[in-house]
């Protein structure tokens, strides 16, 4: 009991200090440390590589589509997305933090539904989401990148102490695509060596905040 009352007192002392430093809106006077209940996301501007909000998003789970420039053909994409520690990356029905939207042809031409595919995702130390989705069979054509190529998700996690008004910075720290021309298996090794390289891209992120 004693410990608990001490904690209340401490909070009471800190409260005015916080208010004094803050030039915030009127709503914060009644609940300055109000736990966040929803997430909002504003899409970035532009027509290049970008993460845009998918219609399947809910108030507590933002699903982001990776969309590329129309007319650019690719065979796969991978990227590392750094987020504030308070942002929690969500998973999809496949158990992974990346979802296939069906644009890339992940199966080989044999199309055995059980064959292993190049789809991977995880969260590295520092809350870096690292995901990749790639076509493996070079007999499959490269795909136009102007459609949602894959999805990721950010969720509201009550255990992370997210507060209303918090802004959650997102930044893509590395991103590469497999280009359309990766040479042919009949090319000499030198040519293949030159062509079998991933190309750097820049992915724009929007603004993620809690309310």
């Amino acid at each position: 009991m004693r410990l608990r009352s001490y904690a209340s007192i401490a909070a009471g002392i800190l409260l005015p200090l916080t208010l004094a430093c803050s030039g915030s809106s009127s709503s914060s006077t009644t609940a300055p440390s109000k736990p966040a209940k929803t997430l909002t996301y504003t899409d970035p501007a532009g027509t290049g590589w970008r993460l845009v909000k998918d219609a399947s998003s809910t108030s507590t789970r933002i699903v982001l589509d990776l969309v590329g420039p129309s007319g650019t053909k690719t065979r796969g994409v991978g990227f590392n997305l750094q987020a504030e520690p308070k942002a929690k990356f969500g998973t999809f029905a496949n158990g992974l933090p990346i979802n296939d939207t069906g644009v890339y042809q992940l199966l080989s031409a044999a199309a055995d539904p059980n064959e292993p595919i190049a789809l991977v995702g995880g969260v590295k130390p520092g809350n870096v989401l690292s995901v990749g989705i790639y076509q493996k069979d070079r007999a499959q054509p490269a795909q136009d990148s102007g459609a949602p190529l894959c999805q990721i998700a950010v969720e509201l996690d009550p255990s992370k102490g997210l507060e209303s008004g918090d802004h959650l910075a997102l930044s893509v720290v590395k991103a590469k695509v497999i280009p359309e021309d990766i040479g042919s298996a009949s090319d000499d090794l030198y040519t293949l060596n030159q062509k079998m390289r991933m190309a750097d891209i820049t992915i724009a992120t929007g603004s993620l905040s809690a309310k």
Partner: protein
Amino acid sequence: MSSRSRRSHSRLLPALAFALAAAPTLTAQSHPAPLLPASRIVTLRAQIPASIAKAKSALLDSRSTLGLGDGASFLAHNPFVNAQGRTVAHFHQLYEGHRVWGAEAIAYVEAGGDVETLTSGLEKQVSVQGNPKLTTSQAIQAALKDLEPKGPMTAQPKVELVAFPSHFTGGIATRFDPKKKAEVVDLGMSTWAKAPAEPYVWAYEVKTLLSNNKDGHREMSYIVDADTGAILRKWNALQGDTPASGTGQSYYRGSVNLSTAQAGDGTFALNALDKGTQPNPYVASQGGTQLGLTTYYAYADMNTGMLGFLPYAGHTTNAWGNGTVYPSPWDYVNGMPIFDYSSDGSQAWLQGSLTPAGETAAVDAHYGLSTTWDFYKNVFNRDGVDNLGTSTFGIVHDLQYSFWSGAAPLQDNAQWSPWYFGMEFGDGTYPDLPFGMIAVTEMDITGHELSHGVTEYSAGLIYDGFSGALNEGNSDFFGKMVQAYADGGATGTTIPEFPAGDLTKWEVGHKSVPSGALRYMYKPSLDGLSADGWYDGIQMLDVHFSSGVLNRCLFFLSQGASSDSSNLTYSPYLPGGMTGLGNDTAARIWYKTLTEHLTPDADFDAARAASIQSADELYGAGSPEETAVMNAWAAVNVGSAPGQPPRVRVSFPVINPPGSFLDTNAVPSGILAKVQIFPTRTTVQIHCDVTNTTNTKVDWSLATPTEGNQAGHINPDGTWTTPGWTFYEDLIPITATSEADPAQFAKGRVILVELDADTDNEIDAVDLGSVAMAWGIPTAPHGSVNITGASVSDWDFVFFDQAFENAFSVQ
């Protein structure tokens, strides 16, 4: 279905569960079945065809309860009548007339006519789509492409269309690396095919025989997908024992009596006409005739390059050998065996094979195999290997394949050859190599090899995983029983005891391995590799080391266990010790288990339940013999002794559950269930489960299999920063030992892979793009994209994904 049996340690055979559960609660001893007079047995034998028909109709009647359709049937093999008058028949499961690979039932027809069946080894709900697309000759071509014979085939491959359960699909195989003293991934024996999506497919079983001076003697068998031609499983049918490692003057047993044959010209041959009434099928296939157990020596045909064997015949005195042996005659300067040649130079055999010293190994083999034959005949009323009197043989001074010289001596090894229906014995490398063997023809080894044949024609235990461990342990035990029988004069219908307290009698190869022994049945871990008891992860051991569980169990059953913890026969799993039943009783219980109650895929739990069932039938439920069987298994950490509380159990979680890619693609199925794949240079979390105790703490230890590359250490909380090196073959063993009960531990295995495929010094999901680009390209320009070490295939995605997700899973 695919998850059944072998990986589940707690599984009981359903048909035996009742006996196991009910027995300890019985207070009064029930009466075992009495032995029947010989005349009655003869009558029952004559009725075997009728008994089989009866058993078959019982199996057919139970098809719907077993989940089998009308297309299911059963084919009997190796029926026999036991001493109680019970007819025992093993049945292959058939689907549309074809064998379902690895699936068998056992039926029992009592003398009074009652029929019971053991059906836990059957495949349920079998259904195969479509018809086989490949012809038999296309299937043979697919197998030969993998076999890559260097010389001519010795015989046309044997082909059979089977319904193949996909969960038996092979993939990653492991082998024992004697230099590393550890299990490693065996790339040569791994099949890089994916398990078919359907649970059952049409496939061809293709058996091959090579015996020439370029390939040596090889008997590779294959399962070829009848739809795609993919190799779904392959295995070496030869059951060799390398990993551990008239009157005649024998080397091992002094002067012995030999059963020989006299020819019309008065000369003699090592041919025991009283052992074997049916001709040897392999000799017959080569245009020859062999009746009776025969001993040969190996030769190479200099014109065709084929390996063969010639009889020890034309002997004028019928006094064989001189009591001395010699090591394989080997020219170390030129790296070649030293041969003698026939007068016209058309045939060559190892130098000295026909001298008196060369005959000595033949005397040991002939005497050892003859005694083994008599042992099975007199003690168990078994007519040879297959109980049908088919003649077998041994080849001494055997020749194998060497990369350098074509033909080379078989060295510290002996093996059972299913195709030959015979055995081969090496000359040993001692004293050229100080840890090598003298001629590999010691009595317990000849008994061991012939017993592999008995297993093939009874329980049919599949030669890998748990069933492989049982197969090996069974051979070691009966090898010892043959030795005891010989020591006691090789006559009579019972097995005598060894001198009390002489543990060397329970060492396999005690005399033939001057530096020690091949295996120590009373304490298998004395060899530094074998298991003294079951633990989670034991299935990763070579069958010659996991066999330690059955070896020690049967030693305890026969000789008892000490309660003195300083004694070599003490078990921490049964601290109070136990009294043994003696050789004869232990062997009768186990022989009945092998021939009547085990199916091909049996594991240790199934063996425990089956041996309790055998003890019940022989001596009654609640009998001291039954209690001894339970105690002997408890003493090797399988099941509990009567009245013992549940044991502390330490286990690693299943990473690759039944049906996952790495489960269904491994040999044996399930062997990779708990193998964790991690990236190098990454901090990962190791988990294990501890049950039946409140103190769930474990002590971690980490072995480093590759010399010079340290794997680091695991912190008390289970975190581990993986090292920066990777060598795909290595399976790094991790041991978790219970603090509550230090006798309980689990061994996990880890494979480290390098994921930085684009060599930017960062392991991330972008690396997988470089791997994907190289898929299907035989020679990828960037070597670092080969995650598994082979050219990039679907396996690389599986290994990448597993390692990545094990390290960076979303919390």
